[in-house]
């Protein structure tokens, strides 16, 4: 067997703090698929693209570049599990590699802490590593399944920053992608197509912080569309979207009096379940929405 592929694992903030199970799941499940995620020590906030990028792009570039340089120094590509982190770190890496003036400006700043961006590594979303047939691929994931998640219908939420802006991504269709559905179906579950699939979760771009009612309105519309299509759970690739769908349901109930009880999973958590991790290893009890009924159905 080939040696594991090693990546610097950029944890982000929401996964370790709110959904530690998804961090555990990412490390353990990918290990079984030949991917070694080594936590990137000394990393800071990515920093959040909406909050920082909207106010001062130079700070955004410099902080993201510092995180990238930490991985460059280890000679490892970065893997991460959050769309927000992906936007910051993937996009800044891409921009700094292609824009000489920007790179020189950022390196001026990094010089103060004896660092230099060299452009020697790539940045990957875990979902992308799992789907890429040259790295893992759907077949290998299917083979790793011990507990097929039979008999459940799942709505996939891609999240905006993963696919857009199209010009600066390379993950194919931005309007009708199906690759995460393939990843979910590899675990034995069914997927559903629902109205306005590519709509935002409601939280991104600082909307959640600025106007919670508006953010919840969007989340509510998405959840309604998912329920209409028969979904019994939501899967996403982003802890921030996960937070919005999960905790958002509590807030929606408070504000609008609508109750969904729709469990929300990061794909890594679902993969963990299918590979036989038990719910406590995945800290599913920390989810805002009770996952028990769903677990009873599939396990």
């Amino acid at each position, binding site marked *: 067997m080939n040696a594991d592929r090693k990546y610097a694992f950029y944890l982000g903030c929401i996964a370790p703090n709110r959904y530690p199970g998804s961090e555990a799941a990412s490390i353990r499940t990918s290990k079984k698929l030949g991917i070694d995620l080594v936590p990137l020590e000394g990393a800071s906030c990515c920093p959040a693209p909406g909050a920082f990028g909207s106010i001062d792009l130079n700070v955004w570039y410099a902080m993201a570049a510092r995180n990238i340089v930490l991985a460059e120094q280890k000679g490892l590509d970065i893997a991460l599990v959050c769309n927000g982190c992906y936007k910051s770190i993937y996009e800044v890496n891409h921009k700094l590699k292609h824009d000489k003036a920007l790179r020189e400006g950022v390196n001026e700043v990094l010089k103060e802490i004896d660092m230099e961006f060299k452009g020697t590594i790539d940045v990957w979303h875990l979902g992308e590593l799992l789907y890429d047939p040259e790295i893992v691929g759907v077949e290998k994931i299917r083979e790793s399944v011990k507990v097929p998640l039979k008999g459940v219908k799942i709505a996939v939420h891609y999240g905006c920053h993963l696919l857009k802006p*199209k*010009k600066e991504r390379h993950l194919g*269709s*931005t*309007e*009708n992608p199906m690759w995460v559905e393939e990843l979910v179906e590899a675990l034995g579950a069914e997927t559903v*197509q*629902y*109205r*306005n699939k*590519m709509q935002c979760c409601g939280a991104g771009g600082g909307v959640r912080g600025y106007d919670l009612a508006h953010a919840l309105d969007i989340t509510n519309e998405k959840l309604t569309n998912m329920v209409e*299509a028969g979904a019994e759970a939501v899967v996403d690739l982003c802890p921030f979207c996960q937070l919005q769908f999960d905790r958002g349901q509590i807030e929606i109930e408070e504000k609008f009096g609508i109750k969904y009880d729709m469990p929300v999973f990061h794909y890594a958590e679902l993969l963990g379940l299918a590979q036989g991790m038990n719910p406590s290893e995945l800290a599913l009890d920390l989810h805002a929405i009770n996952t028990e009924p769903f677990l009873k159905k599939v396990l």
Partner: protein
Amino acid sequence: MAEAVSPTTSEKPKAPRIGVYVCHCGTNIAGSIDINAVKEYAKTLPNVAVVDDYQYMCSTPGQGKIETAIKEQGLTGIVVAACSPRLHEPTFRTATKEGGLNPFRFEMANIREQNSWVHMHDQAGATEKAKDAVRIAVAKATLLEDLYPKTVPVEHAAMVVGAGVAGMQAALDLANSGIKTYLIEKAPTIGGRMSQLDKTFPTLDCSQCILTPKMVDVGRSENIVLMVNAEVEEVQGYIGNFDVTIRRKATGVLSPKEAEARGIVGGGCTGCGDCAPVCPVTKPNIFEMGMAPRKAIYIYHPQVVPLLYTIDWDACVKCGLCVEACGTKQAIDLEMKDELVQVKVGTVILATGYEVFPIENKEEWGYKRYENVISSLEFERLICASGPTGGHLVRPSDGATPKRIAFVLCAGSRDSTGVGKAYCSRFCCMYSLKHAHQIMEKIPGAVPYIFYMDIRSFGKAYEEFYYRIQDEGAKFIRGRVSNIQEDPDTKNLRVYAEDTLLGRPMEIEVDMVVLAAAVQPTELTNKTRKLFGVSCSQDGWLLEAHPKLNPCGTTTAGVFVAGACQSPKDIPDSVASAEGAASAASIPIHRGEVELEPYYAMCVEDKCAGCGMCVNLCPYSALALVEKDGRTVMQVTEAKCKGCGTCGGFCPGGAIWMNHFATPQIVAQIDAFLLGGEQ
């Protein structure tokens, strides 16, 4: 290096006396170049006898200066420092000739397009560059020689490639002026895109009704040789004498004439249609945009010209049922092979049209994903009385009549995302207005929602048509559609856009969406243009010789363009350009001869070793090896040679003399540039 000697010069030329004229071009040149400084500098150059300037050298007084100086000062060469030779070289050559010199004793220094316009903010630099250009031109003018254009006879026949409305009009004009015209069409019928349209804007004439008479005229014209199912395969020759090889694709069906040639008396296809009903294979009819079936032996529609059935070989199973049904007419030959036909023509018109941009590439609108999102051409077939639904507009998902219809304009046009086209497709605004009118006329209570960027109603009576559609009740929303979502149950569509006049996002639910898709050049156009040596612009449309002053010509002499292969054109513009192209293409034919630029290569036979390297290099097949006085030497077919210089630059023995671009002339230019005025 060895001194090359011109093979045309026998006597020693008299001492060169060059006249230099600097043009102000109003302020175009004088605004950024110090004319006096250039003049003073020119006076210091060797062999310069006269230096002058003028506001507009191309004007009659400007040209008069040249003519007078030649006569009075005995000049041997003329330099005009002005604009690009593409614009006024012919003007000044004529002036040179009027003065009594050979017109090829003229040399132009471009100090406008390549200087004053690009160095507007650097007068000192621009002036120095102008001095360089003048010095280089004087160096060449000193060595210029008399040249005499050759004339070649012009074949009294023309060819038009593409038989849409533009090609048909061009062919009819040529034929009516007495020229035998080969009309080549790749499809099984003439008529092109226009025959797919229901009504035309702004007059609302039935498209077929006004087109069919022209199709019939083409079919009946004694001077038109119509070849359908045909493509240009190979082109040889030059203006006046193009040898074109045409591939006539095997259709499997004999025309009455072809049957007669095979000795089948009274046989051949009469278009009776007995064959199609018995054919067991069904395929989508591309004429109906795939929305109606046809058999493996088929015609596009009942009005086709010529009325001959065609076999789709990819679909045919060669069961022979059609052969039986055809009976004694014996029109069907399942073993028919492609045929290559050679024709000789004097001039050629390319009228190869356009195709629709694959609008599914703009994923956000869901074309091919959502059943009720259709393209404009599909709309044309659905609203057309002779279309697959008999003119009843229906939703592909359920056959219901749509009431709320959104029209997305600029669908893939004026698109800077890199997915679509940067240009305006020019006729979509107008046909979408027409579509809006048609649904309001045919479907009681129907509401068109037109999503537009600007309405471009620029033609005659177009703006009035726009007002009319507004008055009829169409809803106009200025904003680009960002996204379309299908309701999985009803298959209705939710259209999202920003209403930029109100400055807020909006969404509406509609029953059907019609995408006014961008148009683009066809694949076959690109292949065909290469055969004729015609250039295209960056976006793939065929390039005219000059966008304003020579819109029908191309940079290949004798090849012209008509219709939408040059740029998106509506029917009036296509027909107008076709008439222009036909007129231009008929001129050399009616004159009977053309002058060729005398820029051809010549072999200096004493130096030629007969190695033949040049023969293989020549892109125009203009060179050959011949036996002469017991030696093998190269010989140039002057009419074929374009003067590109490939052979001259390569010849190891320096045995090729390029007229007007001879080695000593070019070396003198390089020396003048590198060594300054010291040469």
